[in-house]
């Protein structure tokens, strides 16, 4: 069917671009193929103009670098094009829903970026005289107040650099408390649900603990009977995520806290899913001893393609004395920075990072909190939970929820609805890419077969959610008809088709090497 040339398609609708073959350039309209900087840059060039050096005799102790380093320099326009072209090969929350369960991909307000770049925050040195950074210490102290009040906990360690680093902080505090009690050698076991994030057992192991899995019950929560049976005088702590990684609130959480405390252990709560309950529940009311807060999830500091994050860790009375240095103490209108033991940090377990933590993330998170206020944060948590349940309810029509009942901020499905279709979870996820969506978290948590974990967050409008659900329902119906070819081939419209990860791991190529070598 031909069309009028102006303002209308000039090719018949239904033409399959995949069968049209490649273009001469390899480009696809707005998708421009881009080589590596090492293939386009000039190894003798530079894109930065400097003043002329004076030519002073070097005082480098005879250890000047003589070999060629091998770094190309790109002119500014070359660099700009290189990175802009690369950027256009990425999906991002600013383009559409990013429903990765357990990752809380919400809108990143640009006010926060602007605030973090104020010279009074971005251009100050961590070791400047304390008198010259009072505003920075005030900000850290104010953020700490927000975090303590939101969680109902008496203390917070601000320096951990990310969620896993916060876990390490909490577990180090627990270890220090056990040492002080003289029980570090006897309490060597940590219990964590089998549905826990991988960072939990990895952190416990990094602290010298052994880790045992707590089984889940039929409703996807901790099996309290089994849990009870596992407790004993050798247990140092439990590490439990709440809401858990199945998107469910641990109903028996208080009982778990009481039980572990009675057994002489501590309760580490993984706060990755705080978005479901901020402003609704104070985790401190549930009996926990430590919990990290992912500022890059709950409080919207951007994920930046994998970081940086920030993982302030709230601590109970029992653990507060072991908090790492440095930390800020308000003294009237002045702020003091506690960096040494003699400043009242005699029992601190030590230091986690060179300086004071992720200041840039602190500014962004506080900007986010102040903008929302407590009313806005509560509304955000409610909207996040509402959105997840809306998705759960609508998708039930074609997909299979892993557990009965409502969920919190994320909806978990298994692959039962794909049974006998020949389509697997990964195929379903890759087909979502062709529909213009980032897939949900796949194959996690491990307690569900072919898991698909969807976390829409509060940032999605109803219209966006409806389109998303329509797309997934259509895909699910299509999968059930046995049209496996499309799913196995997906994605076909992305900048790359499926990548060979096995080959990548078998013969790792981790850097560019000059073809001349």
């Amino acid at each position, binding site marked *: 069917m031909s069309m009028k040339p102006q303002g209308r398609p000039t090719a018949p609708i239904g033409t399959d671009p995949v069968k049209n073959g490649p273009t001469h350039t390899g480009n696809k309209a707005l998708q421009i193929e881009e080589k590596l900087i090492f293939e386009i840059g000039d190894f003798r060039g530079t894109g930065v103009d400097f003043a002329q050096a004076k030519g002073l005799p070097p005082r480098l102790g005879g250890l000047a670098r003589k070999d060629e380093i091998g770094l190309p*320099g790109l002119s500014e326009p070359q660099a700009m094009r290189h990175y802009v072209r690369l950027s256009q090969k990425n999906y991002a929350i600013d383009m559409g829903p990013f429903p990765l369960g357990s990752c809380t991909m919400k809108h990143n307000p640009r006010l926060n970026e602007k605030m973090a770049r104020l010279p009074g925050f971005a251009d100050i*040195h961590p*070791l400047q005289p304390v008198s010259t950074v009072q505003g920075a210490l005030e900000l850290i102290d104010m953020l700490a107040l927000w975090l303590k009040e939101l969680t109902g906990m008496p203390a917070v360690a601000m320096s951990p*650099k990310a*969620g896993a680093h916060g876990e390490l902080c909490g577990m180090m505090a627990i270890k220090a408390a056990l040492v002080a009690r003289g029980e570090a050698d006897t309490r060597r076991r940590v219990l964590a649900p089998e549905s826990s994030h991988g960072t939990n057992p990895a952190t416990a192991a990094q602290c010298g603990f052994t880790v045992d899995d707590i089984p889940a019950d039929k409703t996807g929560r901790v099996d309290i009977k089994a849990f009870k049976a596992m407790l004993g005088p050798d247990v140092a702590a439990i590490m439990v995520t709440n809401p858990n990684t199945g998107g469910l609130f641990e*109903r028996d959480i208080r009982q778990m806290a009481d039980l572990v405390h009675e057994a002489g252990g501590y309760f580490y709560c993984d706060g990755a899913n705080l978005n479901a309950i901020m402003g609704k529940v104070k985790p401190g009311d549930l009996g926990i001893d430590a919990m990290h807060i992912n500022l890059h999830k709950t409080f919207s500091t951007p994920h930046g393609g994998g970081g940086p994050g920030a993982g302030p860790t709230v601590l109970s009375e029992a653990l507060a004395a072991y908090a790492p240095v440095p930390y800020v103490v308000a003294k009237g209108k002045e702020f003091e920075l506690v960096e040494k033991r003699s400043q009242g940090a005699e029992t601190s377990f030590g230091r986690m990072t060179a300086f004071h933590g992720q200041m840039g993330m602190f500014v962004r998170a506080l900007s986010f909190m*102040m903008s929302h206020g407590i009313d806005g944060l509560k509304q955000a948590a409610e909207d996040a939970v509402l959105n997840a349940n809306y998705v759960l309810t609508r998708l039930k029509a074609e997909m299979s929820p892993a557990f009965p009942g409502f969920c919190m901020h994320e909806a978990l499905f298994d692959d039962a609805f794909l049974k006998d279709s020949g389509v697997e979870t990964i195929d379903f996820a890759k087909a979502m890419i062709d529909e213009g969506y980032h897939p949900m978290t796949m194959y996690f948590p491990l307690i569900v077969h072919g898991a698909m974990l969807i976390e829409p967050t509060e*940032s999605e409008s109803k219209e966006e959610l409806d389109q998303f659900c329509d797309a997934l329902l259509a895909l699910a119906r299509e999968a059930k008809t046995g049209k496996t070819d499309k799913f196995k081939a997906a994605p076909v419209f992305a900048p790359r088709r499926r990548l060979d990860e096995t080959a990548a791991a078998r013969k790792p190529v981790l850097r560019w090497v000059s073809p001349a070598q």
Partner: protein
Amino acid sequence: MRYLPLNQSDRAKMQDVIGINSIDDLFADVPKNALNPAFDLPRQQSEMAVERALGEMAGKNISGGQGPFFVGAGAYRHHVPATVDHIIQRSEFLTSYTPYQPEIAQGTLQYLFEFQTQVAALTGMDVANASMYDGSTACAEAALMARRVTRKNRVVISGGLHPHYASVTRCNSELIGDKVVLAPANIKGDEDLIAMIDDQTSCVIVQNPDVFGHIRDLTPIAEAAHEKGALLIAVFTEVVSLGALQSPGAMGADIVVGEGQSIGNSLNFGGPYVGLFATRQKYIRHMPGRLCGQTKDADGQRGFVLTLSTREQHIRRDKATSNICTNSGLCALAFSIHMSLLGEKGLRTMATLSHEAACDAADALSALSGVVLLNDNFFNEFTLRLPKNAEQVAEDLAGKGVLGGVPGGRLWPEQEDLHNLLLVAATEMTSTEHIRKFVAALREVL
């Protein structure tokens, strides 16, 4: 609330679809008396109000651009081209996640591959990972890796290692049961580390230039370590030094870690920064952190993926090489863009200018009566011995608008013999005028 797209009518319709009367029906699993507690926190504010409040706090700090600036000791004030900050704020970089779906994350993956190559070239090593939190945590991870590689458990730390790096490393290594031997602070750069290495030693950790600014020849230490079956971990806090000094790889290091903040990243009061981590090919399966590797897609086109993830926590759980998950992706991007603009030529110029500024500052400052320069050699940072407590001097200098360096008491609070020391750093941003003002101010406060 400007960030929430749902309105009351949407919420009501959605509740109908779900089949609930009240939002709290969805919170039924929460213990009744724990739901909806009172919070002593303010209500929402306009963008303008938040901007004003935070602007006031920022205004109370003295920022680096306000006057002469000579503070270093692990973080340095270099010039970052405007292009860098523009690119890292592109939505597709800023608001994307860890590249777990490589088909729609080639942008992130390709820059990580380029970043790894740049770091490997700079350090003179075979491979680098996709970043750690910062230099200090990279250092701690390196010691843990040496334990895995050598199956030994004695960590030897040079007295020239930044004391905060030493604390972080000790905190992590002792936790797992390693014995940590920390050499005393070594202000002359002449300690005998070789005598401290024994058969049980997993690694020797040496910073170059060391925290006092001395340039260390790592070659003899590497040879001695290897003889005893230990690894040499070379540390840098100023990555620009690699544009002027022999690479740690060329001097025999087995693991090289350091702080990458100087390239592409602001001071940010200590974070976020970007930890660099590089090693030899034979150790790649012992490395912590994410690695990006090259492969092909179903059409045979070159592409990139995260690889060797069987080392990582999300696959290996308690058997992982590290618990790290989120790293410093966007700071690594900033680093990589800045380095792509610099190239080897620009980096070498930047290093030379920083070195020359430090030479000028060292000469001018040490000409003052009672001020002694401790270094025979240095890159862009050196140590002065002052006739009085340097902490007070730094305060007094700040009162005169000069941020004049890091006093010994700040880094070694418990060691009073170091409290008259002042660590002074210069970069290509340091002007002759800055040095003149610093000298004049120091003369007045001494």
